[in-house]
């Protein structure tokens, strides 16, 4: 708004720089560019890591061999990458197992959660019935589900999958319910007065206006489900990503733990970049404004999801 107004005047006001000036200005421009800063961040991390290793060796009474060095971690990650591993299953198998569990839990949570969210958005009684329990499940730590399910189900797929469902479903319910509440009321009224059948109303009015909320729901459900899944696999799994990082932890290989943690981060970011961003770009192409909103929502995690809608509704 104000920014877009000021920018052209600022650009027009300064005289066009001649090539020589531009050349001398180049280093300063590079130094100021956010991209450089972004590249500098890993460098900075690396330096802090190395320096703290030196500091620890000099000052602190740590057993130094416990601390992983960057080269160790790099070597470990490379070995894992080329599937040369000491763990029972290699990197790809491990993540595939976890992904399978995550996907089954995610699918069930999305279906059940959408159904419940719709019911809660459409009927006041259902909302009153389920609201408190949804909030309770939302606030429950995944650790509790993980330990509980590991005790109930032992070491198989059902415990982790149930953990994913329980961790993810409240986000779906809350988002879908908000979506239903935010549907354009006048369109419903019009549909009713023109006696459009219910099924058609749902398909042409409810679903399109629900899409952004569904998408946000999927995103939360996925990321929270993933966080819950790895904890569940630590306590009640015999394989999978969570189990494998615990394997390195139990073996007391710090470089293994750090390396695997890096894989976790890479996995999450890859998924975000390769799956959710393209889908969001495709699904909301017709609605440029909304797309930016949804992308920001991914950052404002849990933003309007902890009973926030109650204050908003007031």
């Amino acid at each position, binding site marked *: 708004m104000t920014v877009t107004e000021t920018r052209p005047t600022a650009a027009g006001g300064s005289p066009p720089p001649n090539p020589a000036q531009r050349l001398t200005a180049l280093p300063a421009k590079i130094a*100021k560019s956010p991209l450089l800063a972004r590249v500098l961040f890993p460098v900075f991390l690396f330096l802090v890591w190395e320096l703290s290793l030196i500091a620890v060796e000099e000052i602190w009474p740590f057993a130094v061999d416990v601390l992983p060095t960057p080269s160790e971690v790099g070597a470990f990650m490379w070995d894992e990458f080329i599937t040369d591993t000491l763990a029972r299953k290699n990197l790809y198998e491990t993540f595939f197992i976890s992904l399978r569990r995550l996907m089954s839990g995610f699918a069930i949570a999305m279906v059940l959660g959408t159904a419940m969210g719709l019911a809660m958005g459409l009927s006041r*009684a*259902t909302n*009153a019935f389920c609201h408190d329990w949804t909030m309770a499940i939302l606030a429950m730590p995944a650790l509790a589900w993980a330990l509980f399910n590991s005790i109930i189900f032992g070491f198989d797929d*059902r415990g982790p999958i149930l953990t994913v469902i329980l961790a993810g479903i409240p986000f779906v319910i809350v988002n879908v319910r908000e979506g239903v509440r935010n549907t354009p009321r006048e369109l419903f009224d019009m549909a009713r007065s023109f006696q459009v059948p219910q099924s058609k109303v749902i398909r042409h009015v409810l679903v399109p206006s629900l899409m952004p909320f569904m998408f946000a729901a999927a995103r939360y459900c996925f990321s929270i489900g993933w966080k819950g899944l790895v904890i569940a696999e630590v306590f009640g799994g015999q394989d999978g990503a*969570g189990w494998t990082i615990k394997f390195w932890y139990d073996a007391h290989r710090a470089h293994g733990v750090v390396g695997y943690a890096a894989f976790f981060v890479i996995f999450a970011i890859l998924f975000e970049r390769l799956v959710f961003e393209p889908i969001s770009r495709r699904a909301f192409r017709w609605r440029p404004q909304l797309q930016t909103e949804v992308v920001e929502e991914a*950052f404002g995690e849990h933003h309007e999801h902890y009973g926030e809608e109650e204050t908003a509704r007031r």
Partner: protein
Amino acid sequence: MTTTDTTTVETPSAPRVTEEELARRARRSELTSRWFWRILSYIAVLAIWEFALLDIFSFLRGSPLDPKLLPGPSEVVSTFFEIWGEGTMPAAFQATLTRIAVGFGLSFLIGAMIGILMQSKWFEGFFKDAVLISLSAPGLIWVLITAIIFGNRPLGPTIAIILTTFALVTVNVSEGIKALPKDLLDMAKSFRVSVFKRNRQIVIPHLAPYLFTGLRFGFSIAWKVTVLTEVFSSSEGIGFEMRISAVLFDMSEFLTWILAFFFFALFLEKVVLEAIERRYFRWRQAVTAT
């Protein structure tokens, strides 16, 4: 309470008194029905937990479960009083709460500082990936890394809490900064108000509600991570007790510990923090309402 737009009064021609009366009656019946369903839900869930949950889990599991594995609410309550009588609970609560206070306090400061630094494009680029990683990575990895490096030292959990929660504060702060009154800042700049003064007089008051939101969301994550760190690298606190009772397959103790702390944290989160927020930002809500 959650006031939904129930009062859709469609009698503009009717006299005024009946209109109000109608609205009041509609609101009352809405309220009673809401409470009816709400209380019914509590009864239903507790009844299912007490009598039928075991069968449901047995069905899911495909084989019958030992009834001892799933104690009902009555047993959990009696275990709670048993543990309370032993006197270990306040100490565990204290240990966990101290850890949360130290870790999340630091995390809040760091997160807010980074959020303010991210006003500049350069620092935004610098911290972008850190925030992204902190938001998307499971807290478990920080817990395990710090546990393996620091062992049982208190520094480990603190760092784990900071790494998992700072980004929530940062995101809220930078969201607040995005919504800053640009015209005010521009004016301050053109009148050459110093950076420090600008931050103190315009930015901070405007950011306070966002900081508070960050505090609330951050806390809700922080206590979960704290419990998780205690499972791995601690010999006291709620997480430790949970771990012990899970290892001993003592489900009633396990449920008691987690539920006790769950209710306590929920109380802090929903009642205390929300009450404070409502109190201090009443003026702001009034502004946004108009």
